[in-house]
């Protein structure tokens, strides 16, 4: 609502981000904790097992959990520092409300609740139910994700619910549904270890999923060849057998060309294609002109390298293809994904031991959170909100009349556009920081300023929450029971290690009370998280993401269960498609024709350089939590502009010069980091920061027509040398350049 209630500096002064460090000799009780609680890291789709040390209802440290099969104690720096989000001085300890000119003041829960509910009612009465929207996030557990889906449709009665998974893996989900009729990585990571060729496209595994590295290195120990597709020589690519430095936006051209080479050399599995797939002819027709010369021109990769990669891939006996946001964050994200699936299907290497394919889900519960009705077009069990049968089933589970269930709503970025158009007037958000994570965030900020009422549930006052009328002090990952589903489809158990401190409340409790005050308390009567899960099991039953056979006990006994798991005696499904029964209407895997399209914005004389964005290993997403953890901040304290020495020389740029980067949407200043590990025509900025340091001031809001994912990974920019030098204290860990 309107501008910030006080100056940014004043708000930051009080609510952070401030850096927190452990005491010099560790937290009290870390040597002899009251208990060790087995749970998972909150920071990415790997969901590494970890044990939290608890002393006097506070987290005092961690102890590796050696027995959890995925990571066997291994962690990345975020995982090691994960426990530092607890006991944080910035933590919101009470509900607060906006006070014009002063910032925020604590209020009682009664005040927060009654004001919230009266505003929801007022706005919906005046502008209609859909004028009150909800944005959510998939760092939340399955239980909360499910409950939010129900909350929006049953309590808020709005169609406009969407989530930050929209910025994550929706392109992969869209592609997978088209090709396989189901949205999940086809294999557990165990198959990676034995694959002969591993192709990683647009996945900075070593920084964004560090613990997955071990699986790739193990495969290489056994002789696997590694192909990495990335505009930068990421740490994973440094020793790779083939690194394909693709020009941002050129992915589908690359995979189209590889498909053509496979077909031309007959490196394809005719049996599999004939018996278990459809659409092959159309798919190869689409790439028939994609010869090496064209591919080199379009992708910016030398043709010999493309040929070498295609040869390795084509001739392999076993293989695993992994991709992530690098190919998905595009206005043709779904096409990029489909072009990858095409070369997997052509090879026939799927549904067999050591043959796999999958997207690597980014967020903590990116997998589970996208299955149970969290999306604007979705109902639990990955059902379709526009499908009458699906609607009927879920309406029954929820105990409502199908006619009262809202239809398909707007996606996250479309909601922002709808606010600008005046269609959305009020909003509730949880676990989402769009002011940092959405593209073109000046546009997002203006939208927030137009809302009549905005309520946010969070643990810290994020950049977005600063614009809220009321912020409700919710719970951290370790303060509420539940389950999450990892990127490999394994449902694991999150244990409540400590109860919410002070006047904070569990997120679930907050939502239930609002629902109750909106008059539907009977539909939200869950004494425990397990009760929510048990309802979710029923709701997902018969859907593609079928959790019916999974119970809390079974999860704990087996250290996770892979869905689909349709009955209690079913062991779960680590590897999909062994039965060759795909979930498409015709039961076959679908090839999809993919013709290359250029990115929405191309370089020109005015904006001659490609800009791409991504992450660093020490930060997680919009940094609401990780930008408050001292050691993680110190490792990489500010976003740097990675630029090739040749391009830098052209502009007369020296290391650590402040460079103004301008796009058609905004501008920002970043210190230059001159490195040979990036394409000469491309610059890179990590996106975890807000305000003037935000890379998303620059990125473009063009959406993929199917998945509605914004094109974070490519736009055109210009560079201006400001003549200033970075004033940030030089930290060795981020620089160490000697040239």
């Amino acid at each position, binding site marked *: 609502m309107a501008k910030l209630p006080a100056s940014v500096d004043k708000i930051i002064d009080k609510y952070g981000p401030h850096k927190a460090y452990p005491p*010099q*000799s560790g937290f009290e009780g870390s*040597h002899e904790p009251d208990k060790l609680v087995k749970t998972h890291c909150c920071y990415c789709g790997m969901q590494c097992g970890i044990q939290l040390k608890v002393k006097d209802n506070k987290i005092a440290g961690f102890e590796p959990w050696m027995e959890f099969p995925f990571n066997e104690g291994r962690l990345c720096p975020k995982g090691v520092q994960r426990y530092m989000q607890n006991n944080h001085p910035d933590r919101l300890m009470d509900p607060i409300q906006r006070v014009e000119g002063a910032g925020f003041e604590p209020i009682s829960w009664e005040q927060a609740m009654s004001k919230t509910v009266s505003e929801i009612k007022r706005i919906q009465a005046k502008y209609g139910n859909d004028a009150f929207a909800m944005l959510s996030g998939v760092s939340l557990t399955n239980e909360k994700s499910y409950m939010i889906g129900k909350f929006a449709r049953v309590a808020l009665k709005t169609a406009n619910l969407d989530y930050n998974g929209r910025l994550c893996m929706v392109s992969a989900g869209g592609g997978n549904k088209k090709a396989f009729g189901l949205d999940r990585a086809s294999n557990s990571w165990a198959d990676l270890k034995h694959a002969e060729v591993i192709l990683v496209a647009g996945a900075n595994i070593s920084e964004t999923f560090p613990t997955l590295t071990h699986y790739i*290195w193990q495969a*290489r*120990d*056994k*002789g696997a060849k590694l192909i990495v597709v990335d505009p930068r020589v990421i740490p994973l690519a440094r*020793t790779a057998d083939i690194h394909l430095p693709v020009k941002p936006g050129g992915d589908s051209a690359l995979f189209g060309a590889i498909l053509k080479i496979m077909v031309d050399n007959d490196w394809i599995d005719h049996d599999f294609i004939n018996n278990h797939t459809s659409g092959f002819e159309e798919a190869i027709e689409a790439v028939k002109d994609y010869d090496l010369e064209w591919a080199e021109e379009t992708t910016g990769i030398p043709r010999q390298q493309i040929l070498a990669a295609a040869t390795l891939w084509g001739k392999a006996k076993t293989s695993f293809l992994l991709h992530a946001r690098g190919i998905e964050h595009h206005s043709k994200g779904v096409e990029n994904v489909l072009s990858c699936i095409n070369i997997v299907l052509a090879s026939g290497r799927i549904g067999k031991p050591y043959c796999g394919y999958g997207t690597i889900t980014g967020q903590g519960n990116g997998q589970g959170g996208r299955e149970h009705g969290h999306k604007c077009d979705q109902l639990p069990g990955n059902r379709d909100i526009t499908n009458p049968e699906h609607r009927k089933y879920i309406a029954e589970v929820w105990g409502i009349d199908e006619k009262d269930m809202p239809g398909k709503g707007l996606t996250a970025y479309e909601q922002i556009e709808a606010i600008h158009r005046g269609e959305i007037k009020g909003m509730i958000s949880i676990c989402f920081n769009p002011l940092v994570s959405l593209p073109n965030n000046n546009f997002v900020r203006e939208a927030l300023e137009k809302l009549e009422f905005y309520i946010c549930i969070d643990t810290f006052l994020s950049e977005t929450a600063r614009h809220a009328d009321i912020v409700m002090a919710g719970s951290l990952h370790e303060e509420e029971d539940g389950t999450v589903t990892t990127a490999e489809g394994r449902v694991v158990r999150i244990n409540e290690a400590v109860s919410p401190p002070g006047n904070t409340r569990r997120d679930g409790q907050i939502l239930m009370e609002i629902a109750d005050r909106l008059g539907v308390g009977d539909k939200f009567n869950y004494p425990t998280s397990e009760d929510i899960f048990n309802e979710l099991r029923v709701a997902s039953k018969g859907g593609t993401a079928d959790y019916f056979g999974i119970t809390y006990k079974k999860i704990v006994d087996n250290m996770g269960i892979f869905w689909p798991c349709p009955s209690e005696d079913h062991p779960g499904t680590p590897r999909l498609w062994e039965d060759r029964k795909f979930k498409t209407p015709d039961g076959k895997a679908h090839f999809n024709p993919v013709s290359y399209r250029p990115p929405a914005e191309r370089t020109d004389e005015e904006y001659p350089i490609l800009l791409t964005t991504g992450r660093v290993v020490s930060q997680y997403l919009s940094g609401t939590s990780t930008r408050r953890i001292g050691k993680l901040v110190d490792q990489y304290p500010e976003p740097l502009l990675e630029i090739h020495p040749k391009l830098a020389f052209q502009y007369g740029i020296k290391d650590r010069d402040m460079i103004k980067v301008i796009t058609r949407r905004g501008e920002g200043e970043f210190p230059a980091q001159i490195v040979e590990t990036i394409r000469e025509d491309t610059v890179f900025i990590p996106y975890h920061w807000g305000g003037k340091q935000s890379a998303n001031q620059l990125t473009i809001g063009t959406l993929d027509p199917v998945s509605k994912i914004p094109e974070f990974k490519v736009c055109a920019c210009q560079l201006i040398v400001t003549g200033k030098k970075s004033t940030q204290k030089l930290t*060795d860990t981020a620089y160490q350049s*000697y040239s």
Partner: protein
Amino acid sequence: MLRLFQTLNRVAVIKATIAVVIVGFLVLLGSRDLQNFDPALIAYLIGTLFAVFGIAYRYSVWLQRPPTRLYWRRSMNFLFSKDFISYALRSLKLFFKNIIFQRFIAHRSKTRWAGHFLMAIGCLLAFAITIPLTFGWIHFELRPGDDVTYYAKVFGFEAGTFPLGSVQAFVAFHGLVWCSILVIIGSVMMMKRRVTDGGLIATQSFSEDLLPLILLIAISVTGLGISYDYTFLQGKTYQFMAVTHAIVVILWLVWLPFGKFFHIFQRLAQLGANLYKHEGERRGMATCEHTGKEFATQLHVNDLKTLTKDLGFDYDKKDGRNHLDLSPEGKRSALAKAHFEARKESGKFFG
């Protein structure tokens, strides 16, 4: 370390003997040929002389080790140079800061400093009281006809008077009580760390880390026992208190040169190391060829090249450079580059 004690070191024996003779001479001189010597303290005197021998012996042996000798010679050279005044002042300042007040420990932990300081200052004050008393350098007398005034004598010379029953008298005669209290508080603080800190529990040893604290507490408690006895028990248990105290103190004195407490004397080398660094900085810094940054004084790098050779390590390279010319980061990167090349040459980074 141990091998140093396997055979006696001749030079050290001579030096230690000289030290004992000098102390003996000073005892005779200060006590006016034992006139002012308190015969009750004879056991303490013998124990102290033994400690002097031991400390001097070990100090001498210690100084003979190449790295120690180097620091000793360098710091003496720098101290007694044209910059004597500035270096002497600097050393004096550091002496107070780091030896008397042990401020550097505060940077390891504040409570640790507090505990150590209480313990150390208690001990140092106790030394300042007991050694002159034991050696007969100081004694107090009542003069005939004046039973209300104490006369303090230092080296046989009158150094002041104070009335019996005065605050001064109370403070002076209970000096060791105050010291004991400081030492007990400090030792208990340090002991608490040793039984609660997981890292210390894993690495400490009884004789090197716990026994010294136990001894200090024992000395202080038995010492307090003597005061308690004559203040509240009219000396009924004096014999027992005095004997146990003497036994503990003498054990401690005998052990002083060989156990943890020797660090009190070693700590002085910290002053030398500081001078060495300071003078080195004036002469110029060494730059690492890998990082291009200054990382240490050139003097230090050069000395270490010689020193490592004396100790049997030859880090010279064929091209005349030395591995120690690299900064620590430079060395780590050199190792990583060599490893990378070896891996690359083999054609396999994994397997």
